[in-house]
């Protein structure tokens, strides 16, 4: 059996897996992380062994993401910054600025010469992250997909609170005033785009900007963010797998060393 290079990205919300084999297209998988990342890591292992390869024998595994230490069968543990940087670079094929919107972190990663040279993460606050969107969708009784769909037709209400909990109260107030759901949905997405833009504008933005993470394939969000940045931020169809892909690529590099 050919050697497999496996990247496992255990995020706070979703876990992503990438399987690489020489001469083949990368394969991607996603599953919810659930409440225990150790169990999730176990499920991933079982699945990998059933479908691809015996982990101990013919594979090199790199784990990343906030649950990276839970992958006890990983050969290497590498932070999500390095993995997203590597994966994002490979996906777009040139130096770029990566904006990753994760479940609990928003990251800025600047890739020069194929390597991350600078990064920034949001402070310990959920504003401008996937968690914020998730909380607001729940409050509005919508799935995340529905929230994005409604947001496109709404007229954004300004949600100014910097704290997810306070912003939720702000949304509840607007709901009490009888404001429409689409305007609120538009306000939520607009506020995330604004917070992300404010964060990353403290740093150098290259001409090529790509979005990775859970909402990275959303053209509407990419358009909104581009407007706030005054520069084009490109939606990536497979952007949510950037971390896992980078981890798999780094697994291959490590085994060649």
């Amino acid at each position, binding site marked *: 059996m050919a050697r497999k290079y496996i990247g496992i990205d255990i995020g706070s919300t979703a876990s992503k897996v990438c399987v690489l084999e020489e001469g083949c297209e990368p394969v991607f998988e996603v599953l919810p992380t659930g409440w225990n990342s150790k169990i999730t890591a176990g499920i991933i292992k079982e699945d990998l062994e059933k479908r691809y390869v015996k982990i101990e024998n013919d594979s090199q595994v790199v784990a990343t993401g*906030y649950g990276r230490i839970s992958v006890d069968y990983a050969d290497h543990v*590498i*932070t*999500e*910054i*390095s993995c997203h940087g590597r994966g994002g670079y490979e996906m777009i094929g040139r130096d770029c600025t990566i904006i990753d919107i994760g479940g609990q*972190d928003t990251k800025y990663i600047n890739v020069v010469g194929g*390597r*991350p*040279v*600078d*990064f920034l*993460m949001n*402070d*310990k606050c959920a504003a401008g992250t996937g968690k914020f969107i998730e909380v607001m969708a729940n409050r509005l009784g919508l799935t995340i997909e529905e929230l994005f769909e409604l947001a496109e037709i709404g007229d954004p209400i300004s949600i100014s609170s910097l704290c997810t909990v306070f912003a939720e109260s702000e949304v509840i107030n607007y709901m009490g005033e009888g404001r429409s759901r689409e305007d609120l949905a538009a306000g939520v997405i607009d506020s995330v785009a604004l917070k992300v833009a404010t964060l990353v504008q*403290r740093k150098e933005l290259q001409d090529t900007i790509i979005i990775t993470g859970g909402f990275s394939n959303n053209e509407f969000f990419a358009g909104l963010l581009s407007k706030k940045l005054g520069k084009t931020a490109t939606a990536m169809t497979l952007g949510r797998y950037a971390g896992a892909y980078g981890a798999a690529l780094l697994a291959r590099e490590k085994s060649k060393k």
Partner: protein
Amino acid sequence: MADNQKMWADLGMNLEMHDMLCAVLPGAIGDVFMSQENRPEAMDYFDMVLADVHGLRPAELVEFRKNGGKVFGTFCAYVPDEVIVAAGAIATGLCAGSQFWVPGGERYLPANTCPLIKAMLGARFDKTCPFYRLADVYIGENTCDGKKKAYEILGTDVPMHIMDLPQMKREKDYLKWADEIKDLKALVEKETGNEVTAEKLAEAIKLINAKRAALERLYKLRRNENVPISGTDTLLISQIAYYDDPARFTAMVNKLCDELEKRVADGVNVAPGKKRILISGTPMAIPNWKLHNLVETSGGVVVCEETCTGTRYFENQVDESGATVDEMIQNIANRYMSINCACFTPNTARADDVVRLAKESKADGVIDVNLMFCQTYDIEGRSLEERCKAEGIPFLGLETDYTDNDAQQLKTRIGAFIEMLG
């Protein structure tokens, strides 16, 4: 330790609450210090001082006061110990580096105040630190608005003397700081009943210069290519510098340095293959070892601190050529005004220091850490980053407090930074 309990009771401390603090210390010391491998033997002394941090030195202060001696509590690297020592008194740092004291401080201060200032008030008002009980007078300084206003609150419970630190560095500011030091001299003379003579002051200058020289020696040794001592251990020494007996401390640091010299010659390296990190930013008062512990368990080794518990405390000496008390005081003022704190404007000399120190210590990168809500250091972080990048020095800015709830997030950032350097 039974003697400690009696001493703490006599000092009017809240014993029940203080026991909670004492209960966590051995675990913290084990996790942070004893888990390190290949430590220098001469760390024994500092380990001992730390293990009985609220017993050993306080007992000496109690004895000293029994015989009529006065103790002055200080909070800042700008306050010159020389003048206090010259009056036959003892200067002791009042540390405030633990989350344990923060809730107590929040009873008096807004939540968005820096943890150091909150801990200061908590330690005093909760009656859980013997040093805060043992200082007869506290010497404050106008280094930031938070401290300035917090001292007013401390002043309701303990005699306070505030030194008005200039915040620019023009010639008249140096003269002004000398004036403030003269006021401090008058205060310590009044409190102790002892005159600060030229002879006594000259002696005190020599004593404190020797302490600074010992620390300078330590910092030069630690940054050797073969790192002979961890940053965590060195930080502990810098923290102890604030409250130990100066002559004994100097002797112990020099003894350690003798051992380190031998280690360097033998090629002993406590951090082979680790990335060399310079930490700049706000003070790390005892028992705040959070950042050093994170860096040194994430593939890095701290080779220098450009902080008040680092180079700002000991760089530059007081010129010993002064003949009169006035000349000596001006020389003292000149040395302390050479410290580059973010409370000054402009403060580009601090960025010069960081760049110089990064080069001298062959740092792979700079991590600038500021305590949450420390506005001046926070704002200055941006220009420091620009300067470091212009010099080609990788830079990571972090903000944190005394709690552990951001440990994982910090580990990711520090881990990513170290991967980036690799």
